[in-house]
């Protein structure tokens, strides 16, 4: 579900089913599963972010503690994909990369994946 909520949050649409109909969705949160285990991985917003430090154009940056991507300045070289130890940055299909930005500009305060998770398994909290 979170993958769908995430993809939907990126569309600015009103109706999820309609917005994502026949779409090959490109969520910024990703479920890994095998043998009955599954977990969701999205950007950890590292304190010492390799992606930001390594970004060759300056498109990746910090907005407070949130790691953001300025798609206009990203040329899609994938250096950040090469650096992220969590595999949390991916190609977006439009040339630039995409990553979780905690819904700072799209959703009301709480990330869409958190609001949408039926089991309350994704939480949004500060960690020391």
């Amino acid at each position, binding site marked *: 579900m979170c993958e769908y909520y995430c993809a939907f949050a990126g569309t600015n649409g009103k109706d999820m089913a309609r917005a994502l109909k026949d779409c090959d969705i490109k969520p910024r949160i990703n479920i890994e599963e095998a043998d009955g285990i599954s977990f969701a991985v999205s950007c950890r917003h590292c304190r010492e972010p390799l992606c930001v430090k390594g970004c060759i154009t300056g498109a990746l940056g910090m907005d407070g503690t949130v790691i953001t991507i300025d798609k206009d300045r990203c040329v899609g070289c994938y250096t950040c994909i090469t650096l*992220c130890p969590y595999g949390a940055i991916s190609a977006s299909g439009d040339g630039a990369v995409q990553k979780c930005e905690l819904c700072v500009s799209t959703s009301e305060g709480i990330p869409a994946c958190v609001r949408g998770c039926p089991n309350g398994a994704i939480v949004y909290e500060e960690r020391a």
Partner: protein
Amino acid sequence: MKKYVIIGNSAAGIGAVEGIRRIDAKGEITVITNEPYHTYSRPLISYLLLGKVTEEKMKYRADSFYDEHGCKLVHETAALIDSAAKQVILSKGSRIPYDKLLAATGSLAVIPPFEGLGTVKDKTTFMSLDDAKKLDKMLGADKHVLIVGAGLIGLKCAEGIIKKAARITVLDIASGILPNILDDGGAKLVLRYLKSKGIVFALNAKIKRFDGNNAVLESEDKINFDILVLASGVRPNTALLDKIADIKRGILINERSETSAPDIYAAGDCAEALDVSSGKSRVMALLPNAYMQGECAGINMAGGDKIFDKAIPMNAVGFFGLHIVTAGSYDGEVYEEGTDGTDGDKTGEVRYKRLFYKDNALNGYILIGDVEKAGIYTSLIRERTPLDTIDFPLICEKPGLMAFTQNERSAKLGGINT
């Protein structure tokens, strides 16, 4: 108040400014540069020619950067370092005193001493924004461009100008392309791909001399051209620290980015440091290493305590939409998937994967086409993760956090039950 002087206004220099300001909000920072620009992203010069970015968008940091970081930018060449007096002497004679100095002077193009090079009218290297502008002026729909050097810089140049020239020939003395980045199989595959995009190659070709618009080869064959791009290699720009600090190929630095000379640091393309993937000292002329070594230098210059001991060679580069990601050294046993480039499908998906491992550690990898989650492999190399602590066969097939133990995963993802 401490005085910091940084020579070089590119990735390593900017990393140092940001590093210093993490520790010291007040100290006086002077950045010296001999390029007449705001800090810009050097790798974007080919994208500028391609029309994918504008000069404005090439800026590596916002216009407000120097103001916000309280630093002074001096557009002049640093001519000499007087390490006894702790001063940098500029080309017009003025002296800038320092308490801590960083050399972030980058790379220089290596131009082989070809006979007759002086007879070639339109020629350039491809290292800077000025080079790109110069080349852009020479280009035209009827021009034949000869690029000497089939490495990253030569091939990025070829991609950048493909629509602005009639014909592009890339020449190299070696038999393959991207020798510093790819193995034979990968190089063949990428070569085939680049040929399919219209680039002409002259490999195994040794230039004997130039004669005006002709390159005369050892074989006595001639290649006629209008514009010559010299991209056959780079070397660390170490001259300022000659006889001041220890230099091998690059200026030798330790994991704190210190040189052998007191209060003098070095970072980026001009420096040589330990590559943890091979255990050898190397120049790793890549932007992420430049930034991180620079940041590390800055923090230490300001009195902080920072160790950057995770440097590895690494490349993320795309040509005409084909992505290539590599890291580490290609040493050890090989896990392979994908074709070796001899039966590559021109229309379908290109996919090539090689993982190199030895002594229970991943040393390097090459991914072409599908590069998803490559950073998980990079981190195995950088952290020297013992492969018997993870599900290695699983991760070979598909990079993911699933291959780690539950405890490891919880630690990484911040779960509660660790």
